[in-house]
């Protein structure tokens, strides 16, 4: 079956600009760097976030190194009060949100908080917090002696819900369990909320934590893939607004998200071919964005050294954009951060624009591929700003 024939272009004849999103600030939390400017510097210098993680947990880890933050404590950034019982995903997500707000010229006020929300992507919330909670019920003869205050950490929307409380954001609050597609799925969810007029501004991003659980789960599945990127953790969060409104206010965004397209095809090795599906997604996204393949300067891919997934991504990109397009492999700097990956790939592209006016208006693409047949692509156009802009 020809994948291109499956989905007609739904935007034909419409003004694509009304659907675009502006990013007016962003924040990242990674082992490489914390904060947009710091991340920009670290990427520019080509540093790696790989760290020694031995002794980070009581449990043994499958590998001594990971793209993780052994010394990270949310208390160092946000204080003790209110943070003691946060799971790691919540801490990373909330810190990403606060950093994104620090980086934008938009402020939260009583006038806008009802229409200012949060959309965060995840794999399955804090898997460690959930599994720890489950473990408590398996030990001792009174299985119900669990900690009430930790119960909210077992729901996947904990990071988004706690962030809303911390920041006082009463608009739509959503959690998208997208796995490897989470970054793109969160952007798509946000785009829908804004174009339908349900929200004016959203903190949009995705989160993944490093734990013995995530490390072993990954190791048990992929240990045979020798060249694979080691696992990591982090978050990237973007302040997203209606691009037209931002332009009307005379503000220059960091980027415009021109299109986000996703699709579902066969798992690796099954029909319909996900490589052709990704090519179709990229092509559809470019058409929605009103951009020619030849205008694409770079693609930030989710490639991570797992051959069956990388193969899908490479074939999809080559079919849509040609073999010569520059592939930015963000995971070499930040690790395999699963649900945070798509957002970190986008952050890596934005880092390329910060402080570089010569790249203003350049178009780039983010791609993601999941082991369950999901594929996706976002098209964006970036602008520079001086470092430190908007910082108070």
């Amino acid at each position, binding site marked *: 079956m020809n994948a291109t024939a499956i989905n007609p272009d739904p935007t034909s004849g419409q003004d694509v600009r009304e659907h675009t999103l502006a990013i007016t600030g962003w924040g990242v939390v990674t082992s490489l760097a914390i904060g947009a400017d710091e991340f920009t510097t670290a990427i520019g210098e080509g540093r790696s976030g790989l760290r020694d993680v031995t002794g980070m947990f009581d449990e043994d880890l499958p590998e001594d190194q990971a793209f993780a933050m052994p010394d990270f404590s949310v208390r160092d950034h946000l204080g003790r009060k209110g*943070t003691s019982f946060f799971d790691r995903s919540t801490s990373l997500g909330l810190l990403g949100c606060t950093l994104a707000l620090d980086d934008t010229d938009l402020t939260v006020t009583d006038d806008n908080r009802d229409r200012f929300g949060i959309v965060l992507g995840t794999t399955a919330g804090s898997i460690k917090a959930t599994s720890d909670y489950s473990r408590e019920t398996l030990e001792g003869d009174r299985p119900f002696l669990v900690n009430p205050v930790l119960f*909210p950490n077992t729901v996947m929307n904990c990071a988004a819900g706690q962030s809303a409380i911390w920041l006082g954001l009463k608009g739509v609050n959503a959690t998208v369990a997208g796995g490897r597609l989470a970054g793109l799925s969160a952007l798509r969810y946000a785009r829908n909320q804004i174009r339908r007029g349900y929200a004016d501004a959203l903190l949009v991003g995705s989160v993944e934590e490093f734990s013995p659980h995530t490390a072993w789960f990954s190791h048990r599945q992929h240990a045979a893939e020798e060249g694979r990127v080691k696992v990591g953790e982090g978050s990237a969060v973007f302040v997203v607004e209606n691009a037209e409104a931002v332009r009307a206010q005379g503000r220059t965004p960091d980027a415009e998200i021109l299109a986000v397209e996703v699709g579902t095809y066969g798992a690796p090795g099954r029909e319909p071919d996900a490589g052709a599906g990704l090519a179709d997604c990229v092509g559809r996204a470019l058409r929605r964005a009103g951009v020619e393949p030849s205008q694409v300067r770079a693609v930030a891919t989710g490639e991570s050294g797992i051959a069956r997934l990388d193969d899908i991504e490479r074939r999809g990109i080559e079919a849509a954009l040609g073999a010569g397009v520059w592939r930015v492999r963000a995971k070499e700097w930040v690790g395999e951060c699963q649900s945070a990956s798509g957002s970190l790939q986008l952050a890596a592209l934005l880092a390329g624009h910060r402080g570089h006016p010569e790249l203003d208006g350049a178009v780039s693409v983010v791609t993601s591929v999941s082991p369950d047949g999901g594929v996706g692509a976002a098209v964006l156009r970036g602008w520079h700003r001086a470092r430190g802009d908007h910082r108070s």
Partner: protein
Amino acid sequence: MSEAREKHLDELREIVAEVLEVEPEEITETGSFVEEHEADSLRAIEILARIEKKYKIDIPQSELPRMENLKAVHDVVATQAGWQD
């Protein structure tokens, strides 16, 4: 004040302080958890749960409204645990 009472109060103070995210010395015997330390129902149940686990006792949730400060917590626990403080 008996030594046992003092010891129990210190242990309870430790639990309450950790749940309410303050230093133990900030928890006075009669200071209201809600008004002075922003306690809510979830934290109140957490305090109760930790006490039950530590002393291996059962405290009915109907006692929660009473457990509004350290002294009241001690009184409730003393009754349930049979302390002669």
